[in-house]
C-alpha cells in the first residue's frame, strides 16, 4: 500500500464506517459502537502510518478528479495537515469510547444518526487536512459544516434547533459570502489555488488588496472564530458533549485555524505577507479576540459556555501566532493546535462527565464536586493548567514557541496579549478548580452521585495524561513541524 493509497483510504474509511454504522444500527447498539471503534482505529492506524514517509521528506499526492480544467479535487500531504489529521483521527478513538459512555449514560435518542454523522464529519476533516488546493479545502470545509449540523441539532427541541440555525447560518454565511469570493479571487489572480510553498500571490495581489483578501479569508473561515464571527461556537454548545469535545474543541475549530494557517503559509506566503503593512490588522484582530473572549469567559456561569469562550480565545492564539509571521511562531501555531486540543478535549470530557453523573451544568453548582469525582476533576485541573500555560502541561510548550517567535520580531503586541490572556485564563479557571476541590457542597445539592460511566472516565484520564505527556515528549511533533520551515522561508 503506497502512501497515496492511504490518502483516499483516509477519506473512504469514515465513509465506509458511516455505512457500516447505518447497517449495524439496525442490529444493535453494541455492534454499532464496535463498528465505530473499529473504523476509528483503522483510520488512526492508516493516518499515523503516513508519518514516517512524511518525515523522510516525501509529499504523497493524490488527484481524485478534475471538475473542470484548473479546478481539481486533489490531495497532498504536508506537515501541517499531517499533524491535524493525526490529531483528529487519534482523538476520534478516545472520543468514541467517551461517546459510548456519555450517550448511553444520558439515554440520548437517535444514536445511530449521531454516530453516522460523526463518521461523516471525520471524513470531511480528513479532506480538509489533506486538501492540496483551495477548491478541495472549500469543498470539505462546507461538507464539515453540513455534516456537523445534525450533531449540533441532535436534541431537536426548540432551543437546540434555534442554536443550530445560528451555527449553520454563521458558518455558511461567512463561507459563501467571504470565503468563496476570496477563493475565486485567488483563482483568478493567481491562475490557480494550489497550496505551494512560499505562497502563490506574490506579484499577483499587492498592497491594500492583499489586506482585503486576507480579511475575506480570515473572516470567511468562520470556523476560526475570530471576533465577530465567533458566535456560532457558544451556540454550538447545545450539542451533546462528545460533539463539543471532539468537534468544537478539535476537529471543526481546528479546521478553521488550520485553514487560516495553511492559507497564510501556502497561499499568501509568510514573507510576502510580512512585507505588506496592510495585513498587520490580523494581529490586532487576533489580539482583540483573545482579550475580549477571555473577558467574556470570565463572566460566564455555564461551564460549557465558559469553555466555548475559552476556545474562542485559544483559537485566536493560533491565528495570532500565524500572524506574527515568523517561522518559530508558525511552528508555535501548529503546536498550539495540538496542545490546545489535548487540553480542551479533556476539559469538555470532564464537563460532560459531570453532566452525565450529576446533571450539573452551572459553575455555582460545582462546589465540592472534586470529592465526588476525583478522577474527573483531576483531569479537569490538568486541562485548565494547560490552558493557562503552566508547566508541566502541553500549553506551556506552544506558548513558549509563540513567545519566541514574537520576540524574534519584537512584536510587543503579541507578547503583551499572551501575557494578559494568561492572567485572564488563570482568573477564570483557578476559582473553579479551587471551588471544586475545597468548596463546600450545597446541602440540597441534588442526587447522590459518584463518577461518570467508566468509558467516559477512561477517556478523560487518557487525554489528561496526553496533556502532560505532550510537555515531556513533544520531540516528534516539533520534529515534524520543523519541516514547515522549509515551506515558510
Amino acid at each position, binding site marked *: 500500500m503506497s502512501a497515496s493509497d492511504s490518502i483516499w483510504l483516509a477519506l473512504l474509511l469514515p465513509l465506509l464506517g458511516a455505512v457500516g454504522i447505518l447497517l449495524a444500527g439496525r442490529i444493535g447498539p453494541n455492534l454499532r459502537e464496535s463498528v465505530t471503534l473499529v473504523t476509528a482505529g483503522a483510520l488512526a492506524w492508516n493516518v499515523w502510518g503516513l508519518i514516517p514517509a512524511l518525515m523522510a521528506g516525501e509529499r504523497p499526492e493524490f488527484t481524485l478528479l478534475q471538475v473542470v480544467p484548473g479546478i481539481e479535487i486533489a490531495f497532498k500531504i504536508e506537515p501541517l495537515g499531517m499533524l491535524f489529521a493525526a490529531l483528529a483521527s487519534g482523538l476520534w478513538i478516545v472520543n468514541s469510547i467517551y461517546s459510548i459512555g456519555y450517550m448511553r449514560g444520558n439515554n440520548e435518542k437517535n444514536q445511530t444518526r449521531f454516530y453516522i454523522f460523526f463518521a461523516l464529519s471525520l471524513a470531511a476533516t480528513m479532506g480538509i487536512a489533506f486538501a492540496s488546493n483551495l477548491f478541495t479545502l472549500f469543498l470539505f470545509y462546507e461538507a464539515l459544516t453540513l455534516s456537523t449540523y445534525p450533531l449540533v441539532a441532535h436534541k431537536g427541541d426548540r432551543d437546540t434547533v434555534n442554536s443550530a440555525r445560528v451555527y449553520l447560518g454563521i458558518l455558511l454565511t461567512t463561507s459563501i459570502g467571504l470565503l*468563496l469570493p476570496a477563493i475565486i479571487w485567488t483563482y483568478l489572480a493567481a491562475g490557480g489555488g494550489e497550496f505551494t510553498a512560499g505562497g502563490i500571490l506574490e506579484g499577483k495581489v499587492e498592497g491594500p488588496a492583499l489586506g482585503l483578501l486576507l480579511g475575506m479569508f480570515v473572516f470567511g473561515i468562520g470556523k476560526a472564530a475570530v471576533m465577530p464571527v465567533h458566535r456560532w461556537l457558544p451556540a454550538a454548545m447545545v450539542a451533546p458533549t462528545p460533539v463539543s469535545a471532539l468537534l468544537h474543541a478539535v476537529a471543526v475549530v481546528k479546521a478553521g485555524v488550520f485553514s487560516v494557517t495553511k492559507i497564510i503559509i501556502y497561499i499568501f506566503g509568510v514573507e510576502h505577507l510580512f512585507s505588506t503593512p496592510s495585513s498587520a490588522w490580523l494581529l490586532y484582530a487576533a489580539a482583540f479576540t483573545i482579550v475580549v473572549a477571555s473577558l467574556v469567559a470570565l463572566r460566564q456561569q455555564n461551564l460549557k459556555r465558559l469553555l466555548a469562550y475559552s476556545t474562542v480565545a485559544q483559537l485566536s492564539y493560533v491565528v495570532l501566532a500565524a500572524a506574527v509571521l515568523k517561522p518559530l511562531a508558525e511552528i508555535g501555531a501548529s503546536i498550539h493546535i495540538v496542545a490546545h486540543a489535548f487540553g480542551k478535549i479533556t476539559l469538555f470530557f470532564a464537563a460532560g462527565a459531570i453532566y452525565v453523573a450529576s446533571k450539573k451544568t452551572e459553575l455555582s453548582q460545582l462546589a465540592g464536586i472534586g470529592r465526588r469525582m476525583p478522577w474527573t476533576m483531576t483531569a479537569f485541573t490538568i486541562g485548565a493548567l494547560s490552558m493557562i500555560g503552566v508547566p508541566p502541561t502541553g500549553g506551556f510548550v506552544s506558548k513558549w514557541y509563540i513567545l519566541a517567535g514574537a520576540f524574534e520580531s519584537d512584536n510587543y503586541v503579541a507578547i503583551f496579549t499572551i501575557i494578559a490572556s494568561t492572567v485572564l485564563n488563570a482568573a477564570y479557571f483557578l476559582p473553579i478548580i479551587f471551588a471544586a476541590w475545597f468548596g463546600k457542597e450545597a446541602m440540597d445539592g441534588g442526587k447522590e452521585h459518584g463518577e461518570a460511566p467508566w468509558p467516559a472516565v477512561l477517556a478523560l484520564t487518557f487525554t489528561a495524561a496526553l496533556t502532560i505527556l505532550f510537555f515531556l515528549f513533544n520531540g516528534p511533533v516539533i520534529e515534524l513541524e520543523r519541516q514547515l520551515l522549509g515551506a515558510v522561508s
Partner: protein
Amino acid sequence: MTALQAHLPALQVVVPMLSAPLAMLLREHRLSWALATAASLCAFAIAISLTLSVIDTGGMRYLMGSWPAPFGIELGVDAMSALLLLIVTGASSLALIAGASSLDREIEVERQPLFYAAWLLALAGLCGILVTADAFNIFVFMEISALASYVLVAGGPDRRALPAVFKYLVMGTIGATFYLIGVGLIYLMTGTLNLDDIVYRIGEVAEVKPILIAAGFISVGLALKAAIFPLHVWLPNAYTFAPHVVTVFLAACSTKVALYVLLRFNFVVFKPYLEDHDLKFAIFLLPLSLLAILVGSAVAMFESNLKRMLAWSSVAQIGYITLGASLVSVAGLTASLLHIFNHALAKSALFLALACLAISVSKLRIENIGGIAKRMPWTMAAFLLAGLSLIGVPGTAGFVSKWYLITATFDSGPLGILLVAVIVVSSLMAVVYIWRVVECAYFRETDEAQSAREAPLMLLLPTWAAVLLNFYFGLFPGVPLELSSSAATLLLGQTP
C-alpha cells in the same frame, strides 16, 4: 452519417408530436402513459444522439420539405440548442416516469389520455422551438407549447389553478404577440424570416428605428414568456397549483426555452447590427436580474407553501441566468447557459421530491411536514441534497455554475464586487429557505407526519436519478460545460 441520423432534427419534433394524437386515442390511461413515456424517452435518445453529433461536427441543418434555406423552413441544431434539448427531453422523461404514480391522485383516469397528449405536445413544442432556424416557426411552436402548458397547469386539482392558468394564458399570449410584432418589423425591413438570412441581410438595412423597436418588442415579449422580473407575476401561482410532475417539467424547461430564444435574438441578430446593443441590453437586464435575484429569494424565504417557495426561487434563479447573460462576455454567457442546465437539474429534483411528499401530505405547507423525515427518509434526503445543489454547495451542479458566474462577474470590472455581493446574499437566502424546510422536516413533530408513508418506488427512482445527476454533473460537468462554452462563443460570434 446514416440516413436516419440525417433526419434526427426533424424526428426530434415529429416523434412526440405525432405520438400525441395516438396517446389521445388510447382509452386506457396506463397505455397512453406508456406511449407518452416511450415517446419522451425516444426524444431523449434523439437529443443525446444529436448532442453527440453536435460535439463531433459542430452542428446540423435540415431542410423541411427539401426547399432551399431562406424560402423553406430550415432546422438547425447547434451547441446551444443541443444543451436545451437535453434538458427538455430529460426533464420530460423523468417527470413522466414519476407521473405514473403521482398523477392518478390529481387527474381523473378518464381524462388522463388527453393530459398525456397535451404533455407530448408541450414537449414537441419546446423541441420545435429549439431545433428551428426560422423566426416565425419559433412563434408557432411557442404557441403549441404554451397552449399545451396551459392545459397541463389547468390539470391541477386545486381550483386556484384556474385563475393562475388564465393569468398565464393572458401574459403568455401578450408575450407571443409582442414577439410576433417584432418579427413582423424585422421581416418588413429584411424580407426574410430565416434567422441566418436575417443576420446576413440585416446588415444591409439602412434604417435603424424599426429594427430597434423590433428588438424591444422581441425582448419584452420573450421576457414575459421567460418570467424575467418584473414580468414574472404569472409564474408563482402557475407553478404552485399545477399538478406536481407538471411543475417539474415546466420549471425545468418552459422559461428556459424562452430565454434561449431571447439570447439567440439579442446576441446573434441584434448585437452585430445595432450600435451599443450589448450595452443597452446589459443596462436593461442587469438591474432587473439583480432585483429578480433579491426579490425572488426574499419572497421565497417567507413563503410557507413549499411549491410556491420553490416557484419564487425559480424567479430568483432566472435572475442568475439573465445576470450572466447581461455581462455580455463569453464567461458570463457560459455561466448563464450552464446555470440553465444546472438549475433545471436542481429544480426538477426538488419538485420531484415535493411530488413524493404530496403522496402523504395533504397540503404542501411547511407547518404540515414537521418530522416527516422520519417517515419518508428517502424523500427528504433527496430534497436536502437537491437543496444543496440549489444553494450551490461545492460538489453539486449548482456550485459549478455559481463558480462560473462569480468568476464572470469578477471579470466585469468594479461593478463585479457588487454583483458578487448580490449573488452571495441570495445564496444565503437560498440557505435560509431550504433550511427552513429541512429543519422542520427533521426536527419538528406534527400529527399528520406520523401517518405518512414513504413514496412509491416509481416516484423515488426518478427523484433520486435527478439528485444523483446533480452530483454527477457537480463533479463531472464536462459535457454541459463544453456545450455551454461553445454556445457562448457561438453567440458572441467568436471562433472557439
